[in-house]
């Protein structure tokens, strides 16, 4: 990572300097505002670096300016580089990287809404997080925003991108849907049954979770993290805990590392089971759906027995885990996992034998590799389109370094590939759980808690069932949490659906959507 810093310095001169407070794997570099475009272009274009996400923080108290951070991951080494640029309050403009990195689109629009910074040259400057009833000039993520005040609602109009032509009509769907799901609006422009354009409008459940985390104690923050996205509770909590542990310089005991792997994989198992069930259900093959939901239920019951909660809440603690798997539990756990695996095997075999189901999923909702890469797609969705990336392997955390597993990658990018990726990952998860249980060393569950250090920032990350999930935490002079950034996989993958549905027909949308199965809560935060 030092090499990357040196390369940057050599290229752009002494205006660039390394900041204190980084770790071996996370290097912080300060760049001037004018150099943002050049350095970002240099890192993504010429070096094997990938822009993971970008965000702003209100650091006016510490640095007399806002800070913009660009997080890059090295695609060949286990390291991250974080570029930081200061944006002065009296001239709150920063250059948009969206024109050459379209994946930044939603993120830059979010920064505009929450911080009042202006992205110059942003192709689509409409507001994203706030809807038309939110008055202009109120930026809740600024430190001087009074969160108790009542914001008067105003009237306004949101302009959807229009497709015009003969026979084109718009289908508005949501934000209230049939069935028990979260709110989100989908605007289709279709010619007959084929979809010409889809525009997604979310953030109906924006709760300001990140803001709510500011000033909270680490254990309180973990509680909040568990509630970001219900079915990914453990992933979010684990990512948050890792960031906090880096901040407090806590070493997690080895047994806890292995237990974290087991719980993370248990979470992946029940998520993937329900995703595959959902695909089967939306294709109206209810046999497969109900059988897989049955397996999901057995997994949730295992969770309940091992952890006390069905969705693995309250398991993770700062510095380790709270729940152990004892020898007696282990035997029963292994037997049950084996039984679920056998059942899963036979259900999947049946699924592939149902021609009408295979016909529905084959070639439906294709995401091309270029689209997935350009929009920074993550997780099973990206892997189904041929993007070979998985944090567990590329940037190992917990005990993944000591375990062997495959990362399934398929090329076609259709619903079938996404289903195949998830099926393969289920098998890998079974294997990981089995191996982790057997190689897990004896030892303590949790390190002693230590206070988090002041004026530091750290990144925690987990490959959640939906893809890579990042938590960024920064502390102020008193060692209080001053910025908590949650980068959830759903936020990245929602825009991909807009491309996946093109050239498909309207009645296939639910199936395509289900094969992504993204979280609204994780997206809106």
């Amino acid at each position, binding site marked *: 990572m030092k090499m990357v810093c040196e390369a940057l310095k050599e290229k752009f001169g002494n205006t660039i300097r390394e900041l204190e407070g980084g770790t071996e794997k996370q290097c912080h570099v300060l760049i001037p505002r004018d150099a943002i475009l050049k350095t970002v272009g240099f890192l993504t274009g010429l070096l094997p670096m990938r822009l993971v996400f970008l965000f702003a923080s209100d650091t006016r108290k510490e640095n007399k300016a806002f800070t913009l951070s660009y997080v890059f991951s090295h695609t060949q080494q286990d390291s991250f580089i974080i570029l930081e640029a200061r944006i002065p309050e009296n001239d709150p403009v920063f250059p948009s990287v969206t024109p050459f990195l379209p994946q930044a689109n939603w993120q830059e629009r979010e920064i505009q809404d929450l911080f009042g910074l202006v992205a110059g040259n942003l192709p689509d400057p409409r507001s994203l997080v706030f809807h038309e009833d939110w008055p202009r000039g109120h930026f809740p993520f600024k430190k001087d925003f009074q969160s108790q005040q009542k914001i008067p609602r105003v009237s306004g109009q949101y302009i959807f991108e229009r497709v015009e032509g003969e026979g084109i009509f718009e289908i508005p*769907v949501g934000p209230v849907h049939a069935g028990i799901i979260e709110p989100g609006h989908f605007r289709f422009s279709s010619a007959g049954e084929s979809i010409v354009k889809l525009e997604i409008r979310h953030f109906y459940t924006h709760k300001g979770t990140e803001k709510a985390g500011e000033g909270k104690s680490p254990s309180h923050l973990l509680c909040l993290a568990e509630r970001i996205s219900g079915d990914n509770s453990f992933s979010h909590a684990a990512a948050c805990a890792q960031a906090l542990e880096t901040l407090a310089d806590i070493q997690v005991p080895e047994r806890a590392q292995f237990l974290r792997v087991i719980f993370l994989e248990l979470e992946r198992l029940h998520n993937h089971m329900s995703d595959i069930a959902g695909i089967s259900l939306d294709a109206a*093959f209810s*046999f497969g*759906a*109900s*059988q897989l939901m049955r397996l999901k239920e057995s997994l949730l019951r295992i969770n309940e027995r091992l952890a006390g909660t069905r969705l693995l809440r309250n398991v993770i603690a700062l510095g380790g885990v709270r729940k152990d798997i004892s020898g007696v539990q282990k035997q029963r756990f292994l037997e049950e996992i084996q039984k679920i695996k056998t059942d899963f095997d036979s259900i999947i075999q049946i699924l592939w034998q*149902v021609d*009408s189901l295979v*016909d529905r999923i084959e070639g439906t909702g294709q995401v091309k590799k270029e689209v997935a890469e350009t929009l920074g797609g993550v997780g099973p969705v990206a892997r189904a389109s041929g993007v070979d990336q998985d944090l567990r392997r590329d940037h190992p955390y917990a005990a993944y370094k000591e375990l062997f597993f495959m990362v399934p990658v398929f090329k076609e990018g259709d619903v079938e590939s996404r289903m195949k990726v998830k099926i393969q990952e289920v098998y890998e998860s079974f294997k990981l759980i089995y191996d982790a249980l057997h190689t897990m060393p004896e030892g303590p569950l949790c390190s002693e808690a230590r206070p988090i250090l002041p004026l530091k920032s750290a990144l925690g990350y987990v490959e959640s069932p939906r893809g890579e999930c990042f938590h960024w935490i920064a502390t102020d002079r008193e060692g209080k949490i001053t910025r908590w950034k949650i980068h959830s996989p759903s936020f990245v993958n929602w825009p991909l659906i807009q491309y996946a549905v093109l050239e498909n027909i309207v009645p296939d949308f*639910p199936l395509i959507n289900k094969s992504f199965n993204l979280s609204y809560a994780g997206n809106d935060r």
Partner: protein
Amino acid sequence: MISIFFACAKVLFLMALAPLLSWFIKKMKAISQNRVGPSPVQVYTDLWKLFHKDMVISEAASWIFHAMPFVLFASVLSAASLTPVSGAVSLFGFTGDVIVFVYLLALGRFFLTLAALDTGTTFGGMGSSREMTLSSLAEPALLLSFFSLSFRTQSLSLDGIVSYFSWQSPIQILFFTSLAFGALLIVTIAESGRIPMDNPATHLELTMIHEAMILEYSGRYLALIEWSHQIKQIIFLTLLANLFFPWNFSGMSGFAAFGVGIGLYLLKIFFLAFVIGWIEIHSAKLRLFRAPDLLAVAFVLAVLSLLGQLIIGRGV
């Protein structure tokens, strides 16, 4: 006089039995999914509940919206009165009732699609357009398969067709009607909105056909629509049962014959419902643009059946 009484009783019988048949398929699906499933009373109490609920009606609704449930129900009941059930003659049986039968159903469908457009909601319009696309393919297949049977029996009345075949040997029936049976089975699946054509259990508006059209309905109107849909389903199953397995119209007389007739009839329609349920359990829903292919198969079967009768001629 007594025959009119019997014919009326027959229609009432179909009305009463229709929900039970829906229950049977629901129960089958439930068992396939390791669920307990509803009790037979449930389907009736559901209708009862809907009949006693208040209605929420869109302000944009015109008279078509209000008239549709009644037109649909009446048209389906009229079609039921043309359907030969067991022994007794149909209430309105006359020469040419095959064509009336098909267009009575079309009348109901016409109002159904119109009413779906009436309130101006997106899903209603989508449902209407899909329903019309599919039924414009199902209707010719239905008519042609009737015609092929009519050609054989020299009768355009459903009663006539049934009574002709009930005197034939099973081999002959199998020989002359199997193609038409295939066509009619596919049309039955399409008309009763079952998988693989449509999914009656889905909550996904974007994929709906029949359900999308009735999303705006509630209370009494919805009850009428649901009930007509169930009656339509039983009519088609009855037709399949009696046109292609017609062996209960011969022999005995009096109450014994009546009892045996009803028993056999029940056995046949529940067997056919089992077939429909079996297909539903074992397949996913077709992609919307593949559904016309299946209906095209029905059409081809019907044409082949008609051609077959033409080539072989009546003398055999």
